[in-house]
């Protein structure tokens, strides 16, 4: 294949995964709600419900609370933009990427944090007690989750010798046994906890709660309406998708295309969708069995996962 053909193919791969994540993220959320509904004995609103919600929100009026500033209106944009950038650089469909080397795993984690910060600032900017409360809790959880996630990154990239996402994925593809190494398993556990904390799922945060005092994520977005809310909902769904997708492809990359030929890409898209579906459904099933924890037990959970991360790193040093 010629260089230009390669670039065109890689661009197609990036565009493909952007389209897949943007289009599929609400469906994933819909699927998770559907699984939950079925387990609760309900019929459920259908997998497409989040998309119907989004379409409706786009037609509605947007509202800005009195006394808020540009931060309030910019935050959804920044949240969505940072998630889009992550989606573009993460190896979901192919390890070949036109934006190779733009952002490594550290940058991806930091971009996730950037989104959290944008939303937290917006929560504070509303000037309501709930907004401030949500912001305070969200950044506390994020601050405690960040060390864990970076340690997991460390454990993963130490064995590969690079923190570039594509390198990690490729190395797992060439030596699959790595996945079963203690370092990798421990890192997977740590990463799973972080996904739950960062995506605001049970037992850290209840995405379906109506009680303001128990909210984390919802409390920050109480003031948003219309298209602003749509952006936030879409971005939240995408963040969940991206986190699950990273988890899937860092620890079980099989099925990902190593070229940019159309057929493997198509196959990779199908496999990726299936992986996410399974992971999402699994998470939804898990959520049925747990209740939300007290806010002040969440740090214990995160400290535990931090320990797992530390063990993972030490394992990668000593058992390398």
């Amino acid at each position, binding site marked *: 294949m010629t260089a230009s053909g390669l670039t065109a193919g890689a661009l197609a791969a990036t565009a493909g995964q952007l389209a897949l994540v943007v289009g599929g993220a609400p469906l994933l959320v819909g699927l998770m709600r559907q699984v939950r509904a079925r387990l609760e*004995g309900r019929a459920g609103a259908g997998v497409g419900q989040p998309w119907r919600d989004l379409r409706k929100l786009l*037609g509605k009026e947007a*509202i800005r609370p009195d006394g808020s500033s540009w931060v309030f209106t910019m935050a959804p944009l920044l949240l969505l933009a940072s998630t889009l950038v992550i989606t573009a650089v993460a190896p979901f469909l192919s390890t070949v990427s036109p934006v190779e080397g733009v952002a490594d795993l550290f940058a991806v984690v930091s971009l996730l944090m950037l989104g959290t910060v944008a939303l937290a600032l917006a929560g504070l900017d509303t000037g309501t007690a709930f907004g401030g409360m949500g912001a305070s809790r969200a950044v506390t959880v994020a601050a405690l989750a960040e060390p864990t996630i970076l340690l997991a990154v460390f454990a993963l990239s130490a064995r590969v010798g690079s923190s570039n996402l594509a390198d990690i994925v490729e190395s797992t593809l060439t030596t699959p046994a790595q996945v079963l190494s203690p370092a990798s398993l421990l890192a997977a556990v740590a990463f799973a906890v972080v996904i739950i904390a960062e995506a605001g799922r049970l037992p850290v945060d209840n995405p379906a709660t109506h009680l303001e005092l128990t909210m984390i994520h919802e409390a920050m977005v*109480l003031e948003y309406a219309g298209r602003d809310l749509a952006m936030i909902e879409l971005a939240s769904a995408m963040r969940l998708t991206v986190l699950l997708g990273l988890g899937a492809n860092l620890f079980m990359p099989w099925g990902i295309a190593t070229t940019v030929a159309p057929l493997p890409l198509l196959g990779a898209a199908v496999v990726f969708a299936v992986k996410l579906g399974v992971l999402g459904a699994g998470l939804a099933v898990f959520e049925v069995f747990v209740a939300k924890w007290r806010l002040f037990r969440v740090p214990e959970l995160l400290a535990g996962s931090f320990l797992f991360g530390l063990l993972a790193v030490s394992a990668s040093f000593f058992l390398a």
Partner: protein
Amino acid sequence: MSVLRKIIRTGRVAESAPQAPPASADAEGADRSGPEPVAPLSGSVQLRHVDAGSCNGCELEIASAFGPVYDAERYGLRLVASPRHADALLVTGPVTRNMADPLRKTYEATPAPRRVVAVGDCALNCGVFAGGHGVEGAVADVIPVDVEVPGCPPTPDVLIAALRGLTGR
């Protein structure tokens, strides 16, 4: 594990959905022009519930409408925490003096297009509380009402039928 056993033993409890009300039909007893299904709201209506002074009988029925048996969520309905996220207000009870202003504020806080659903006889005409010393009036006296759901309390199927008129599902 006991939860798992329970889930398997219980299976699906949601009753099968009744026939969707014809799109143009009014909810029973509505004396206005009825809930024109608003195009932008089709398929998804988020509700913010406001208890303006109800006896909580209506609340019980709303809760069971969203419970597993009636499962209102399958029609694209959802209860939300903030009026900013809502498309319709679900108002119950006669409007008491202390709740009149909050009700108006909630209505103000809801983004357009917005609908108001008055649930229960009290919301329609103050019901058994008519003439009470703390009662300001019916919901329609405070904010414009679009859909009326009579009954004391209205049964979940009546409530759901009225709400399905909003989502068009």
